[in-house]
């Protein structure tokens, strides 16, 4: 294992993040605050409680997941697409590195960034609502696994993309709708039964439900289902990355 190389990639990627630290942090803080104002106060004043949780607090886990998912995918996909785009990938390919180290460096950095942003959003949320976490270990485990799996997904996307359009298309057309329809702002129990069944095919539902359970002890689907979903998704992404590694798909001509 070439540890200095992993460190070099990780530090390099994190430096990019810290160079634009204001942008990286202010924009999620502002958008979270806006969600609280709109959903928490304006709409929440009419909703009262969901499953015994005040609506303002109820949306916090969903909001954190929403941001963490989007940030993981966009950071990791951009991180590996950019060297491909400007040609500096030659250096990664000619260095004594295996694909594993490249993945650890880029995915690790992207996951760290979204973890930082997720934490900031949680802290911001405490200014708006009373928040307590019933199962902190589960909460951290769900957060970490989500950051990692979606950073892996972003990495795959970055390798696959042949243009900036493609790079933005998937998050916009696939991930955003899945997240919004995944119960970030509502309990799926509020939906008509037919739609509840449809929703069960949305993997994000399991993530948000599990994450929310870690906070409040209430869930839309069983905890086991949530844990299996996120582990399964993580394993699937790992398998795809492994396949890319074996075949050199879209990396080595």
């Amino acid at each position: 294992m070439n540890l200095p190389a992993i460190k070099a990639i990780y530090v390099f990627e994190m430096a990019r993040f810290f160079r634009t630290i204001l942008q990286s942090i202010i924009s999620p803080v502002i958008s979270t605050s806006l969600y609280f104002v709109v959903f928490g106060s304006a709409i929440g004043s009419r909703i009262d409680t969901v499953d015994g949780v005040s609506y303002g607090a109820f949306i916090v886990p969903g909001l954190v997941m929403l941001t963490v998912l989007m940030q993981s995918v966009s950071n990791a996909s951009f991180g590996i697409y950019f060297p491909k785009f400007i040609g500096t990938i030659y250096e990664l390919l000619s260095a004594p590195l295996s694909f594993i180290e490249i993945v650890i460096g880029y995915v690790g950095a992207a996951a760290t960034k979204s973890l930082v942003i997720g934490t900031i959003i949680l802290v911001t949320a405490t200014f708006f609502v009373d928040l307590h976490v019933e199962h902190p270990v589960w909460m951290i485990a769900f957060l970490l696994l989500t950051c990692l799996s979606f950073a892996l997904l972003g990495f795959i996307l970055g390798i696959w993309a042949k243009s900036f359009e493609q790079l933005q298309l998937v998050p916009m057309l696939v991930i955003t709708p899945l997240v919004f329809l995944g119960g970030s702002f509502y309990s799926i129990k509020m939906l008509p039964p037919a739609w509840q069944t449809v929703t069960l095919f949305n993997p994000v539902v399991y993530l948000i439900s599990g994450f929310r359970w870690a906070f409040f002890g209430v869930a839309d689907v069983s905890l086991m289902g949530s844990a299996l979903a996120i582990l399964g998704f993580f394993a699937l992404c790992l398998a795809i990355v492994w396949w890319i590694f074996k075949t050199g798909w879209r990396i080595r001509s």
Partner: protein
Amino acid sequence: MAAIVSITDLRKTYAGGFEALKGVSLDIEEGEILALLGPNGAGKTTLISAVCGITTPTSGRITVGGHDVTTEFRAARSLIGLVPQEISLEPFEKVMWTVRFSRGLFGKRRDDAHVEKVLRQLSLWDKRDTQVKALSGGMKRRVLIAKALSHEPRVLFLDEPTAGVDVELRKDMWQMVHGLKQEGVTIILTTHYIEEAEAMADRVGVISRGELLLVERKAELMHRLARKELKIELPTPLRELPASLSRYQLQRSDDGRTLVYTYEANAETSGIGVLLRDLHEAGIAVADVRTHQSSLEDIFVDLVKEDVT
């Protein structure tokens, strides 16, 4: 001397079906400077890319320092520095940072003293805190070289290092290459400039359309293939060559004032003596004679032309 890079029957067919390398075999000796010459699209970059791990060869075997580049890629690639043909750099990074990054990628401990030495050598030290995008093209190329040297490679590949570099800087670059050779670094460079190969290389390889046409010591190559020309200036124009001189296959200029005699530089006898005697006997007076030896360029153009026909 032992071969530090050994390439055996290397073939590369790109995904589109184009065969860019058609069975190249080449041994590069430790400590030498090898220049690869060849027209656009000959396969020079493909050859380098296969050695450095950027493209996967279709077949064939490559070792660097005795390590197979696919099965022992870590050991092999640790020895190699690559300066690519295209300038590819992170635009927003500072020079010092990007060079340090390269060193890290190659698994080396951070060593700012070494990075400083390399940057000074390439006259980049003053620019160490400048963002890459604010550098001129020639400076960017030197940053690429600094990145390749940052991890102390034993074999350095320079893919057209002097493309877009002014004459002054080109001379500096040649000097730097010679300096590296003194330190024992093996250097493989590609170029379109024959003068560059002539000035720098110990050996010259000529590639055309995916085939290595020849690899030879520069001096031997010149010696073996060089033709010499003897230009004979005449005081009075000659209308017609006398039949007694036909065996020399002289070329007469249009104005009849010069005759050109071509001969192999290394032939046992040049035949100049008898030619001059025969000229005298034919009653042709000679005003002046000059000889001209063909350059590597002439040889190169001849070789590639032969290959095309």
